[in-house]
């Protein structure tokens, strides 16, 4: 596959000059280096809740792995990077079922595998294969879990997770809310990949100051393709419509 081929249903964007493709699964593909990037898989979230008395369905790890297997089979990446919170809590790897452990090992074989530490799984001790790092720099891109503050140099070329971006856009009758990639060309924040990981609206205070609003594009995950939307189409984020043209006040 050449660097200009866009996988089916993907949406192309650039970060610090590098071409990336947001996939409908929620993973990002970096064709130039054949790298697949996923954020916030939150493996074992179900069992993490079960520990505390909410017996959520125990199928989430398997469902997330199936999605990852499909992406890996389709793209045959040379390298996979997980942007942190691969597990919902530090004890997640210990709870991993033998079957899931084997599936993960099969995915890792024959390719580079990098786990970036997240805030949920930084203290993970169990052996699950692959390398670990608190952050990594490859070419023009930087990989970390929590996005750096918006006005620092560190934000340039950053691919991050942590915030689980989602956006609501208005359509003909009502609105549609989906997980999304959020990027302004300088950095990108990836949607949560985990099957039980929820989303946080781009209009939430946590995103304040992270993006240049006039260049922000949200790439919403559809069922089979990714839809690019300018910031002003996003509910709660757009330019106010009372004619003054001023931006929604930031906090």
């Amino acid at each position, binding site marked *: 596959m050449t660097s200009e081929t866009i996988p089916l249903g993907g949406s192309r964007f650039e970060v610090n000059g590098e071409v990336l493709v947001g996939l409908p699964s929620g993973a990002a593909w970096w064709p130039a280096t054949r790298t697949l990037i996923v954020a916030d898989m939150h493996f074992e979230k179900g069992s993490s809740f079960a520990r505390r008395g909410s017996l*959520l*369905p125990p199928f989430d790890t398997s469902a997330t792995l199936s999605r990852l297997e499909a992406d890996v089979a389709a793209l045959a990446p040379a390298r996979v990077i997980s942007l942190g919170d691969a597990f919902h809590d530090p004890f997640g790897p210990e709870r991993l079922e033998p079957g899931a452990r084997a599936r993960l090992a099969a995915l890792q074989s024959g390719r580079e595998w990098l786990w970036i530490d997240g805030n949920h799984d930084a203290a993970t001790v169990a052996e699950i294969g692959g390398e670990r790092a608190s952050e990594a720099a490859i070419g023009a891109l930087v990989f970390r879990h929590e996005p750096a503050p918006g006005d620092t140099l560190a934000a340039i070329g950053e691919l991050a997770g942590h915030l689980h971006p989602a956006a609501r856009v208005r*359509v003909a009758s*009502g609105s549609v809310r989906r997980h999304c990639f959020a990027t302004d060309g300088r950095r990108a924040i990836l949607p949560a990949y985990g099957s039980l990981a*929820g989303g946080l609206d781009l209009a939430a205070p946590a995103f304040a100051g992270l993006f240049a609003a006039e260049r922000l594009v949200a790439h919403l995950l559809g069922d089979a393709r990714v839809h690019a*939307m300018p910031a002003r189409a996003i509910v709660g984020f*757009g330019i106010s*419509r009372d004619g003054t043209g001023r931006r929604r006040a930031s*906090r």
Partner: protein
Amino acid sequence: MTTSPNASPPPILPDRFATWFAARGWSPRPHQAALLAAGREGRSVLLVAPTGAGKTLAGFLPSLVDLAARPLMVASGRGVARRGIHTLYVSPLKALAVDVARNVERPIAEMGLEISLETRTGDTPAHKRQRQKIAPPDILMTTPEQVALLLGSREAPDLFGSLDTVIFDELHALVTSKRGDLLALDLARLRRLSPSLRAVGLSATVADPHELAAWLVTQTPGAARAEADLVTAPAGVPAIVEILEPEARIPWSGHLARHAIPAVLEAIARARTSIVFVNTRAQAELVFQDLWAANDQGLRIALHHGSLDVAQRRKVEAAMAAGGGPAGLDAVVATSTLDLGIDWGDVDLVIHVGAPKGASRLAQRIGRSNHRLDEPSRALLVPANRFEVLECLAAREANAEGTQDTPPIRAGALDVLAQHVLGCAVAAPFAADELFAEVTSALPYRALARETFDRVVDFVATGGYALRVYERWAKIRLTKDGLWRVSNPQIAQQWRLNVGTIVEMPMVKVRLISDAKGRIPRWGGKLLGEMEAYFFETLTSGDTFLFGGEVLRFVALRETEALVARAPGRDPRIPSYWGGKFPLSTHLAERVRGLLADPDHWRVLPAQVREWLELQRAHSRLPGRTELMVETFPRGDRHYMVVYAFEGRLAHQTLGMLLTRRMERAGLRPLGFVANDYCLGVWAATDLGAALARRRPALDALFDEDMLGDDLEAWLDESALLKRTFRNCAIIAGLIERRHPGQEKSGRQMTASTDLVFDVLRSHEPDHILLQATRADAAHGLLDVRRLADMLARVKGRIRHVALDRISPLAVPILTEIGREPVPGTAGEEMLAEAAEALMAEATA
């Protein structure tokens, strides 16, 4: 009221009571005497009585007589002897419990009886609640949720071990909901703690009082249904129900009755105090605004609905209690929040704007005016469109005949059972066999299969998944002695915080800010009330809408608050928001069909409505009483099909979803649909009339019941309504914890989204017990599948196609509604793509 003190030979009242009655010039009414007799014999009894019949006193008299006659308490060595509760009173509303407590305290005080009486609600201070567990009053007045909590406490056997009587007020309003299911299970539990317990139900008139009577007593599965005694108080004077006949033109569609506002104001001016009932909150807002805009006489009109701030609602209620006096009100515009509750003596007129949707609903609302039995209640019905004229007429005739259409009691919900099973384990270790026997002694659960019960217990223990991976985190465990026990104290605490079956929609507070300078203040601003978060998710900064009677501009969402500013003089741009919408009852629908099919009956209709029906008869035909009429006609470049099903909006919406899927497959290229209470309109790109005439597809195939099979399943996959139903079930069953005030800031992305849980569960274990509970709910709730199924079965072989070359008179109302109602459901994906392309094209131009 009967007044012949020495008419009844055996003294039915002890001296002290007889004297008290005589001093007021009263004597016990026959139904009060009947309840006293039932009390003496220890029998359960259902009292069906209209408002104003002295229902409350009738319910309490046997307990007061019994308590007054009991021996004085002997002080034990430790001071006060402990005695459990004698009579438990359960009301659906805490305000009602407090009000009734006041009414019962009066005779106790006036007769100097040594009877202690207390209320216990969510508002009761913790220290008092604690004390009530140790030293309970003789009579405790409370709500269903508090009963569940008390039953889950260690003290339950002491509290209820000698319980003599339990009284359920407004039983008709309780039994048809999940709250009623939980209460039925709690009643079974109370009976186990106190085997000689008798239950007393107080109810308004219902369609099937025998069913309610059965609800009160122990059922034996497999045996004939047992029933409590039934006592029916005579009805009061029949109500005077008028239908407003405006001089102005009656609109084709809409629910606002703008044309009738001057007449409504006149009616308010003539009455002492009026309640103006409407069906939804959006309607309440708009009608209130319209009334004020035309209120030249300075009438005092207030607004009352579930979204308004509690303090605001209490203020309105206090003003209502003051009646038409100087501090009072002339009218209040209200939704179902005022259907039940405290009696206001001064209300002498009920005005119903829009059709009442059900005969019993109308009767209940009319009963809110004038509580004296010897004077008629008065009501004015104000139809907002032509179909509603027919419906109002049907409702008035049903009311005159005293017909009731309250829904039947349904099979008990499984999510409620799951909550109860955990509650039982919290109270004390239980044996599955005994609990199963107890649960099936409650009417709603008497047909429950043992296998289903065991699955519910399994769900409570480990989640009920085929992959048995949660054994080590089981919430309840089967121990060697054969009893199920709670695993740890945190589980009990979690249950306590989640008791109850009322699941609030995610709400946001509406806060008024002044943003004259275009800045959002960091804090402050007046709290106006609460609204569903769903509503604000569709708004963009600058959108205007009506709330609390004024036009507001949406500024921003800040965590759990919606910041808004006043926008006087602007038009509300967003027309409505979701509120409770009741579908037309089956009974009224039948009457409307009957009315349409019987031209002799049209004499009673206003001339313009009569002309409309005559035109329909001339240009098309009238839907027969037992058939399903389907019209097709072209209009513009589209082809329309109108289905006159009269099954209510919810069932029509579901039909629309299923029918358009099927039409899609048949190559008919449906483009959209719109539903109201009376019919369904579908439009398509191909000639529907021609296709049906060629029997490609045949009408009976198009409407075959099998659409409720695979099509329904496939649609449910994508239905947002089903996800919302699942959320309720998951919270009630304890799969997901309720969020409590103060917890909202824990961050939305960290909590388990029920939508995602639903998706994962559905794809991995479609037969899970909670999905089973969700489907059962959907059949009656937001999707009304049951009613649709009944209709499809009923019209089989009786579907009549009328092919027209232009729109028919009867189709005009539904066509004018196109584009007004949001279409729920599945179109999101396509619209997303469309919107995206349009926006990006614009952005890159």
